């Protein structure tokens, strides 16, 4: 019979909670939830060995434990420090932590390009949230940002080394999910870059999960690249009978089109269940999926923009009953608009759309113009 793990009492921002010994401060704070929880860019509860790299989760320990009440001399990384009995931790209540976090955000943004308008991660980027909530609006660096040459790592995943914050999450994910080390961080210090070894393409059934794991836009879905902005698509939970994975996913849809498939994420932005590449990259038809219903998205997220909660079902049309005839439609936007044409289905194109994808569209448009002209 193994002994039951003793429970430790820990106070975080004046909220006391009992957690089993061996829990990290971060996980204890997550049990409390809310503003008490320090942000984490590199720690990922589902990846063994992650954490301790980004320093955003720094907290102040004002009382070490019941037995040794001295405070810890420096701020500690809460994802790597385990709780002690009677420990007192300050997160948002400590001005030292707030100031330090500001510095950490500034450091992370030193070499991060300001290309959010181009980046596909914008809207669900943890670094955006972090700098918005904890950072300052200016930078003091006078040096040029480091740039790396573009590298192609296969037809499904887009790698942007400049956007990488070196959190190592994808390295751990690739190691632990695929059992094969395929990519890693090369060089050191300022020259460190994320890469595959000698341009080797990643070919594993679960490698697509590195996209979900990436807190920034360094690894993004190539099949979704530039197709749409995250906040214009509507997330719905769906599942399918998949032989390789659980098949429980989140579809990002617009109308009937499935633009992107990702794993479902919990409130800490972590994947609930890993999904396979087949589900992620190849099942872009609504008919492939059993749709369960809209995903729950935080009201404060940009993704919930323009998505109406509790929308009223379509009402029966009574116009013809009242005025005795159907109203004459003077103008149909789809006849004129070039956007969202039937001839070009963006969600079905493999990879980002290019100018030649719209050429077929041009031809159809010309024919349409002739037709409209004749009708006049």
């Amino acid at each position, binding site marked *: 019979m193994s002994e039951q793990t003793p429970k430790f009492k820990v106070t975080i921002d004046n909220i006391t909670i009992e957690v089993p010994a061996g829990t990290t401060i971060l996980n204890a704070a997550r049990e409390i939830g809310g503003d008490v929880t320090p942000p984490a860019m590199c720690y990922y509860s589902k990846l063994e060995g992650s954490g301790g790299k980004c320093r955003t989760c720094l907290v102040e320990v004002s009382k070490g434990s019941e037995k040794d009440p001295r405070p810890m001399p420096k701020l500690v990384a809460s994802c790597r420090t385990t709780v002690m009995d009677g420990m007192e931790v300050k997160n948002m209540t400590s001005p030292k932590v707030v100031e330090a976090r500001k510095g950490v955000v500034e450091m992370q943004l030193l070499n991060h390009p300001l290309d*959010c308008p181009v980046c596909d991660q914008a809207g669900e980027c943890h670094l955006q949230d972090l700098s918005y909530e904890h950072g300052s609006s200016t930078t003091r660096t006078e040096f040029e940002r480091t740039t790396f040459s573009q590298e192609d790592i296969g037809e499904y995943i887009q790698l942007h080394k400049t956007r990488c914050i070196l959190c190592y999450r994808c390295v751990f994910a690739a190691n632990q999910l695929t059992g094969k080390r395929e990519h890693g961080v090369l060089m050191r210090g300022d020259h460190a870059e994320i890469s595959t070894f000698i341009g080797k393409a990643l070919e594993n059934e679960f490698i697509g999960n590195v996209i979900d794991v990436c807190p920034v836009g360094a690894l993004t879905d190539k099949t979704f690249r530039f197709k749409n*902005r995250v906040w214009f698509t509507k997330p719905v939970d769906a599942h399918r009978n998949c032989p390789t994975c659980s098949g429980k996913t989140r579809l990002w849809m617009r109308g009937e089109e499935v633009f992107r498939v990702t794993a479902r994420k919990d409130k800490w932005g972590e994947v609930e269940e890993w999904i396979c590449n087949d589900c992620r990259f190849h099942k872009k038809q609504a008919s492939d999926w059993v749709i369960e219903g809209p995903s729950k998205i935080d009201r404060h997220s940009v993704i919930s923009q323009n998505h109406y909660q509790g929308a009223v079902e379509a009402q029966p049309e009574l116009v013809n009953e009242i005025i005795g005839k159907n109203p004459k439609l*003077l*103008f149909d936007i789809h*006849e004129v608009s*070039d*956007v969202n044409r039937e001839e070009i289905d963006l969600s079905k194109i493999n990879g980002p*759309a290019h100018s030649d994808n719209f050429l077929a569209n041009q031809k159809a448009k010309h024919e349409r113009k002739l037709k409209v002209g004749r009708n006049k």
Partner: protein
Amino acid sequence: MQRITNRAVEINRNPMTFGEKLYVPAILKGLSITLSHIVKKKATVSYPEKKRPFSPVFRGLHVLNRDEEGRERCTACGLCAVACPAEAITMEAAERKAGEENLYREEKYAAKYEINMLRCIFCGLCEEACPKDAIYMSETVMPANYTRQGMIYKKTDLLIPHPKKVNAN
């Protein structure tokens, strides 16, 4: 009854006096007001011969900007569309191919960009949201159109002329 303002005037409901019944003084008073307006400065201008100066914050027709080299600035980030309260803006993005660097400023660009002027309320939020200085509201008054079809402004209608090609002409 409690008065909200002190501008209310008590109505005189007494029967008219002999002088008021003659109406002549009242007519003369009215005519003098009318005649005085002949010499006063007109409140209107005869548009389109004369035009009033615009207010510096006037928000007219949208334009899509180019940079100094004539490349389109818009990267189809969608911030104008999400900021638009009338949901008038739609777009479709594409990736820049090799050889198109002289056309588009960044690797992503708006292949299609449309503003539905029937929906637009000229609030200027798109201009404010744009991180790339791509969309601006000019000092041109939105022209009228005979058809509703003509009110859908495409990218060709919105883009400013190429600076170098204008100089060549």
